[in-house]
């Protein structure tokens, strides 16, 4: 068809413009998000490379317990050790470095290693230090020389300090490595999971975009049935009409994609504040290269054109205006097979984790594969669930609206489920993460359990016995510190218990302490009970001979429990003793690692859910309008026969609500079931609790948006079925 004719055909009505504007807007939003996700995915290795300097350099590192570690400072080597510190529930990365006075080793950007008593901080850490009294935080590290440049940081929110240390102290640190040059290639293993999540997110985002294009094409065909028929009547073939729709959508997709570049620029500031892999992102880390951007636009335009072509070709508007209704393939229970196989593989693999000698690789494959198959299985089984629910609804329907809706649903379960599939998958994944998160949250919700270390107590492991005196002396003058006590090393080699006086043992939380000159107790169990395992029971203290002659192993500070007192005590202990491991409370111990990671992942999942809901809501609204326009004539005749428009609205609402309700409930239940299996198998006694408020907000929000999408289409339903618009034939 000549371009001029195509232009006349495509852009000849206000409705055509409105539809195109809606398509362009939807695709622009989807492409914008896609480009941000793609940028984050592509730059994830760069983030790792920027912080490679703090990791052992595989080419030049000499572990401190290897032979050849210089015991005295040398100019061509520095000693480097990574640890963590805590402040008010937040984790701080600390990198200690020891160097000679004339070292030739420099950090990236030419930063010279700080001398003992000096430090560099990341901008976020410098702000945190400046915002708090020195005796609670700043006093731990000494004199600040400056801030670390962006080229040494993963992202702007990274809390990290580079601290100068004594060579002697670091040479004895088991974590320290000797480096002649800093690593430049990052260790990508930590970010592989995030890359996988972002890659899946990028691909997954294309699915609702394609669904949207498909549904909008259907709407376009429904709206322009007469026009398509006219074009067929004057000689255009089925392929010509499909090509017209394909060209229209291809151009709209390209326009949407180009606008999407601008949308991505607008979205980046919001996306940059999300924490990924322990830090927020620099905006530059969310920008894909020109080549990737161009490739994304080509893919989006090709998907748009291809989907519209196929959809219109399949609809096959005839020369007389009638489309041949293609009955859906029969939906049977076989559609639930992938779901059953996925769940079996997942549950079986989870059970296998408890078997001794089970091949770990196979178990992991079963868990990951089972989970993926379960997620796919929900979408695959969705039409069958919709059909089963609609058949029950059909039997129970008592009103005209119910009968009309149930008839449509049971005859078109695939089409009706398609418009809610995105929300269903999102709810499954978020339910699973919310379930897992609830178990982690329960583990880290530390309270004062009799027999475990008191919540208000800090414990510091000593690198040398001499540190104990300095720490105790310093603690004596700290406001809010009630007591400073020492735990001594058990004389037997290999023992995992410590020795304390009975009074000190009681002061830090031990119970059933026998009257004896001294007692042995397991401080690690008291610290980790209920956190690393679900069990909170610890071995009762046992009588021991006198303490005299034993070497101090830990110093513990019992505070009044206020955050300020705890941080003052921690700062005093670090400043006085310079321990390689920061003093820790049970809460700090619980927060390390898992919670932060799970929260980051759940935040990404919630955002993914919001995106899926947004696009799916648009698809749902368009699908509702398309379904009404498809039946414009029959609905109009029903209104002619006396059916009130309110009944039609009820029917349209039920057609959207039933598949959404049935499959949403099933996917939420499955998500929690998978989480329960995972927590039971891998959580070592952990149990699940009710998910937090965010989950209920997300679920309620998705239902509200779906309701809004359906009610938003009511106007079109009313207008398109007005009795005067339905001609007597």
């Amino acid at each position, binding site marked *: 068809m000549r371009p001029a004719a195509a232009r006349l055909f495509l852009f000849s009505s206000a409705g055509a413009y409105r539809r195109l504007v809606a398509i362009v807007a939807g695709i622009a939003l989807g492409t914008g998000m896609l480009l941000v996700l793609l940028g984050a995915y592509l730059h994830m290795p760069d983030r790792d490379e920027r912080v490679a300097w703090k990791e052992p350099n595989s080419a030049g590192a000499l572990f401190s317990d290897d032979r050849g570690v210089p015991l005295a400072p040398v100019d061509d080597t520095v000693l480097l050790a990574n640890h963590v510190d805590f402040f008010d529930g937040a984790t701080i990365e600390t990198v200690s470095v020891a160097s000679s006075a004339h070292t030739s080793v420099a950090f990236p950007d030419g930063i010279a290693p700080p001398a003992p008593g000096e430090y560099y901080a990341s901008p976020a850490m410098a702000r945190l230090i400046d915002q708090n009294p020195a005796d609670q935080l700043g006093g731990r590290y000494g004199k600040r020389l400056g801030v670390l440049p962006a080229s040494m940081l993963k992202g702007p929110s990274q809390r990290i300090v580079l601290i100068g240390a004594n060579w002697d102290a670091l040479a004895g640190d088991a974590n320290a490595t000797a480096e002649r040059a800093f690593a430049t290639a990052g260790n990508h293993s930590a970010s592989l999971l995030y890359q996988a999540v972002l890659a899946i997110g990028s691909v997954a985002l294309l699915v609702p975009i394609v669904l949207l294009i498909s549904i909008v094409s259907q709407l376009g065909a429904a709206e322009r049935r007469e026009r398509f028929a006219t074009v067929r009547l004057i000689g255009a073939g089925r392929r010509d009409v499909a090509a017209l729709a394909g060209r229209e959508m291809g151009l709209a997709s390209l326009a949407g994609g180009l606008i999407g570049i601008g949308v991505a620029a607008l979205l980046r500031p919001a996306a940059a504040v999300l924490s990924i892999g322990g830090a927020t992102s620099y905006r530059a880390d969310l920008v894909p290269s020109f080549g990737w951007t161009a490739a994304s636009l080509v893919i989006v335009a090709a998907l748009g054109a291809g989907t519209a072509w196929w959809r219109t070709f399949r609809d096959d508007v005839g020369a007389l205006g009638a489309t041949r*209704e293609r*009955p859906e393939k029969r939906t049977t229970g076989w559609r639930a097979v992938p779901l059953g196989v996925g769940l079996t593989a997942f549950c079986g693999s989870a059970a296998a984790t408890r078997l001794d000698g089970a091949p770990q690789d196979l178990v992991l494959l079963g868990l990951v594969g089972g989970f993926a198959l379960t997620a796919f299985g929900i979408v695959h089984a969705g039409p069958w669930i919709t059909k089963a629910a609609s058949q029950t609804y059909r039997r129970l*329907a*008592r*009103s*005209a609206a119910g*009968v*009309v809706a149930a*008839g*449509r649903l*049971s*005859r*078109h379960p695939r089409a009706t489920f398609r418009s809610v599939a995105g929300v269903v998958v999102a709810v499954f994944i978020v339910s699973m993460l919310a379930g897992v998160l609830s178990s982690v949250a329960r583990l880290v919700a530390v309270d004062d359990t009799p027999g475990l270390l008191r919540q208000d107590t800090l414990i510091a492991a000593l690198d040398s016995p001499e540190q104990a005196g300095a720490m105790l002396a310093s603690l004596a003058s700290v406001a809010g510190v009630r007591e400073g006590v020492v735990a001594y090393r058990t004389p037997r080699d290999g023992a995992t218990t410590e020795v304390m006086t009975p009074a000190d043992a009681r002061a830090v939380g031990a119970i059933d302490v026998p009257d004896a000159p001294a007692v042995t107790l397991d401080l690690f169990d008291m610290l980790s009970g209920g956190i690393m395992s679900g069990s909170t029971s610890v071995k009762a203290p046992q009588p021991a001979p006198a303490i005299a002659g034993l070497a101090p192993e830990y110093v513990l500070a019992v505070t009044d429990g206020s955050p300020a007192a705890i941080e003052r005590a921690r700062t005093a202990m670090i400043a006085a003793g310079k321990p390689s491991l920061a003093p820790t409370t049970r809460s700090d111990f619980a927060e390390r690692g898992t919670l932060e990671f799970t929260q980051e992942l759940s935040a990404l999942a919630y955002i993914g859910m919001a995106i899926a809901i947004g696009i799916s809501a648009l698809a749902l609204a368009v699908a509702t309008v398309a379904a009404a326009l498809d*039946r414009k*004539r*029959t609905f109009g*005749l*029903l*209104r*002619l*026969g*006396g*059916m*009130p428009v309110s*009944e039609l609205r009820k029917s349209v609402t039920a057609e959207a609500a039933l598949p959404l309700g049935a499959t949403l409930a099933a996917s939420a239940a499955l998500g929690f079931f998978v989480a329960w299996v995972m927590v039971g198998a891998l959580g070592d006694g952990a149990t699940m609790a009710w998910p937090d408020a965010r989950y209920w907000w997300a679920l309620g929000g998705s239902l509200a948006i779906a309701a809004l999408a359906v009610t938003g289409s009511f106007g079109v339903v009313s207008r398109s079925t007005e*009795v*005067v618009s339905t*001609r*007597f*034939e």
Partner: protein
Amino acid sequence: MSDVIIAATGLRKNFGTTEALRGIDLAVERGEVLAVMGPSGSGKSTLVHCLAGVLAPDAGSVILNGTNLTTLGADARARFRLANVGFVFQFGQLLPDLSATDNVALPLLMGGASRGEASATARKWLERLGLSGQLDKYPGDMSGGEAQRVAVARALATRPAVLFADEPTGSLDSVSSENVLTTMLDVVREAGTTVVLITHDARTAAYADREVIVRDGRLSGAFAEAAAS
């Protein structure tokens, strides 16, 4: 004494500058089968829209079964149609996703019948129209004549006072057409239902008790006098 069920007086209806009806007076007796004929664009559809209470005329009045439709609002007219009027059209009137029984039950459900009552009544009407073997079939699985008889069953299931049939056999072959017409008219005559039948076809009009012709928005010639009497 005659029992007039539809009385239209001085009906006028304009669409923009086009005068579709230019002052029509028409009376239809209870139980009568009236054929409305006329060329395309003559205004017969607009006339039926006004008689059935689908459109409100710009001038004149329509009294149907004792109710002046011109005084009712759109919602009230819809409720009135549900209780008093049935429609049969040329094609496309059945819901493709509903079985024959559910299609016929639909107006009964809309009128407040229970599901069980509506289904039983629908089955009874379908059997009466010779469709006892098609109760659970969908429109796509039926022949044109069968689908049209289902539409007639749906129109009559609520026992309307008046049935408006707009080219009810226009899409059927002659055998099916005769079959549908005779079945429909047998049933309506037995029930005493008034029928207003719009048709181009003189053979179809021959089944009616009386014919009127609409031309340029008016009832034409001698028919006009007879129609108004």
